[in-house]
């Protein structure tokens, strides 16, 4: 297995692939270039990105690229699928708690930024108009979108399919949101370590997953101080404040990276009590949650994905 690691989308990014060396190296170059071009298009941290242009176009139709249109449409669909626990229209709230620049820049700013409180209110994404034929989007005046996590998952999956053209089997991980195509030679699954959200140096368990997606959402990673208050990036769309949850992280295994990313976020916001209800509704989802004591909780089907070759405590 060949690897290439670099920083992209404010995340540690890993490309892994098996195949002829020259072809894999070319695939890595193509994949890295594709990530760079998609990031430029979908980031909210650049005024010139296509997403920022869309966010400034409120009230009028915006002709979008296929990429921006597809991610926006997916994001709107997931709002109803998660009963509103995922919502891309919380950008004002996110900036209001201090996440108004990239996390790399936010963390470089020592104790973060204290901004005057802005008025934020709950948007209804059903007010977004999508014209599939013209690939056009109309946001209501004043609404702005953050496609951060879902775009990262979408890019990981798209890039993995690109890399698969140059390799026999491959994986793309963008900050732990990953998508795998094919299987390593002689293997029946991909091994993925699940990080301890209380101490990233520790590994809680090893997952064995088939081709598809794995994503984790955590409230311990992207944290900063706003004045004296500790903040994290996971906004609860119901309160428009950082989510108060009894879980530290949730990992989801799903066929698509966007599904894994969105439901990891929704389940983490939901916490143990409401996650039961989501689990009852979505029996196709596999998830593992880690609570504040480090105890892991899994959906009924989660045990099938533990590496049984390893002795657990």
């Amino acid at each position, binding site marked *: 297995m060949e690897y290439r690691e670099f920083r992209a989308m404010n*995340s540690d990014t890993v490309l892994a692939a098996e195949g002829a060396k020259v072809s894999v190296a070319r695939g890595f170059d193509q994949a890295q270039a594709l990530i760079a071009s998609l990031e430029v298009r979908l980031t909210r941290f650049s005024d010139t990105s296509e997403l920022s242009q869309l966010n400034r176009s409120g009230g009028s139709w915006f002709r979008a690229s296929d990429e921006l249109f597809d991610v926006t449409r997916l994001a709107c669909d997931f709002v109803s699928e998660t009963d509103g626990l995922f919502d891309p229209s919380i950008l004002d709230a996110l900036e209001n708690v201090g996440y108004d620049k990239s996390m790399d820049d936010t963390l470089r700013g020592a104790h973060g930024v204290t901004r005057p409180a802005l008025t934020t209110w709950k948007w209804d994404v059903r007010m977004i108009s999508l014209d599939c034929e013209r690939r056009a989007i109309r946001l209501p005046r004043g609404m702005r979108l953050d496609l951060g996590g879902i775009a990262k998952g979408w890019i990981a999956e798209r890039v993995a399919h690109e890399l698969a053209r140059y390799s026999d089997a491959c994986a793309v991980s963008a900050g732990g949101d990953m998508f795998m195509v094919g299987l390593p030679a002689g293997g029946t699954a991909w091994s993925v*370590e*699940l*990080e301890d959200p209380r101490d990233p140096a520790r590994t809680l368990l*090893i997952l064995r997953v088939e081709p598809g997606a794995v994503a984790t959402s955590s409230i311990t990673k992207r944290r900063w101080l706003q004045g004296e208050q500790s903040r994290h990036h996971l906004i609860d769309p119901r309160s428009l404040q950082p989510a108060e949850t009894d879980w530290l992280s949730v990992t989801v295994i799903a066929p698509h990276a966007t599904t894994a990313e969105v439901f990891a976020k929704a389940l983490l916001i939901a916490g143990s*009590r409401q996650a039961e209800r989501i689990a*009852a509704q979505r029996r196709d989802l596999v998830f593992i949650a880690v609570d504040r004591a480090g105890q892991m909780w899994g959906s009924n089907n989660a045990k099938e994905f533990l590496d049984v070759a390893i002795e657990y405590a």
Partner: protein
Amino acid sequence: MKQLKKYLRAMIAAGSILGFASGWVLIAHAGKPAVTFAPPPIIAPAPSANLAPLLPLDNAPSSLQPLPALPQTRSMPRLRLRTGGS
């Protein structure tokens, strides 16, 4: 010739009247068709394949299971593919 034309006109007029009257009588005495009424088929909405019925939260079975963790004394080379959020 004139006589023949008059005769033909009279025959056509008489034939028309006779035909109309015969039809009237025939229809008036014919058996009435049975009235049948089939109600339109009721199309029931198909149940969604993916969604299980939503249970009231208090009665929901516990669908979460505690999972074991790796012993922290274990040493093994770290995998490149790690997930932990970003």
